[in-house]
């Protein structure tokens, strides 16, 4: 049985135009390249130590 209060909590608000700029700037979704770069930089920093 669906619980209305629980279900309605799952709905997220829509993005408004005024919030779009912030959303774009804070869009820090990482892809494989980012992960690899991070790994390489960690390895290099360890090597330097």
């Amino acid at each position: 049985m669906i619980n209305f209060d629980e279900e309605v909590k799952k709905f997220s608000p829509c993005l408004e135009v005024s919030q779009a700029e912030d959303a774009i700037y804070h869009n820090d979704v990482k892809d494989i390249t980012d992960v690899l770069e991070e790994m390489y930089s960690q390895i290099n920093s360890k090597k330097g130590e």
Partner: protein
Amino acid sequence: MNNMECLNCGAPVLENGHCSRCHMSYDLLSKAFNTSNYYYNLGLDRACVRDLTGAIDALNLSLKYNKQNINARNLLGLIYYEMGEIVLGLMQWVISSNYLPDNNVASRYIEEVQSDPIKLEEANQLAKQFNQALIHAKQGTKDLAFIQLKRILSNYPHFVKGYLLLALLYMDNGNNDKAKKALKRVLRIDKNNTLAVKYLSEMGVTSRDIIEMKERSKRIDPDKAYNDEDQYKSDLQTFVEQGIASIDDLDDPDVEVGAFHELNNNKFNLIYVGVGLIVGVLVFWLLVLPTKINLANQKNREVKLEYSEQISSKNVEISELNKQIESLNSQIDKFNEKADEEQKKEDEKQESFKVIKDNIPNSTYDSLVSEAAKQIEASQYKKAITLCDVALEIHEGEEAYYYLGMAYLGDHDEKNAKSAFVTLKENYPESSHIEDITEYISE
């Protein structure tokens, strides 16, 4: 590995298979980019069969392997746009055009949206209204949430999130039929919407029926959906021809998605008109009428003031006239007093004259008459008339009348002469002068 460029930074790849600049493994990046393209293709396939939720999942995965996969990002934006999440779509296209400024279809999408500021504002309003409806739903004011959602969906018939929330509200309200109808529309836009399938299953819809619903999926014609005016006219005509029940008949779950909420909107239009009239009357009653009454009162006060001024000026005139009347009355009284005094004096004179007259001897009369006869002989008729008058004042006598008549004759005053002779004849018919005067009387 010769003549190969790094997929990340474009620098030459070394013999060991790593980039000479960023040291990334070419094979690893190549596999990641291939995987990204694979998921993009998957997303594209799903989008083509209207499995938009599946396509979004695949495209998000594609971007996790390669966030610079322009095609995947553009398609993701397009799907968001199709589902009514216009700002999310714009966001993907802006990021896409940032990665690839030239020859990017995302730039055209952005231009198209931005070229119509009204549309952009409408999209913004859609987001705001949905957020407001969501707040109402969370706070328990579900009626307001219903109204807000119906208004949104009448303008944006492919706004999936709105349908889902509306279906949830209907389910909570116990109105499963309408909930199913809303979810059916969701499935027409997004075949594999997991939330819609979940809600339908909860309501006891079989998998077979759900599949049937999915098979009917087709794209909504936005032009048809936005044409409220035509829809309104159509509904109005149906209403006139078949009555109000026909409007409910139109609320059929099998009608096209674009017509869904316009019907409800038109039903509300009648209520809105009624409410508008009532509000108009109230505004007139509460705002316009008091102003008019105040104006009328002010005019009345001005008229009263004007009349009061006129009355006061008239009163002043009346008081002045009364004063004049009083002064005239006093003058009249004075004149009357004077007249009385004059009369009194005259009476005294008359009395004195009478006393004198009574004391005058009879010889005087005779003397006056004989003197009058002498004057007539001397042709002094005026003097004779005066003497006779004086003699008659003393007392009447035939001689005095006779000579008076003769004196008038001599003075060519035949009328008075005749009068004197007539008096003589009437008072003294035995007089010796009757014969002499007969010819004058007969004339």
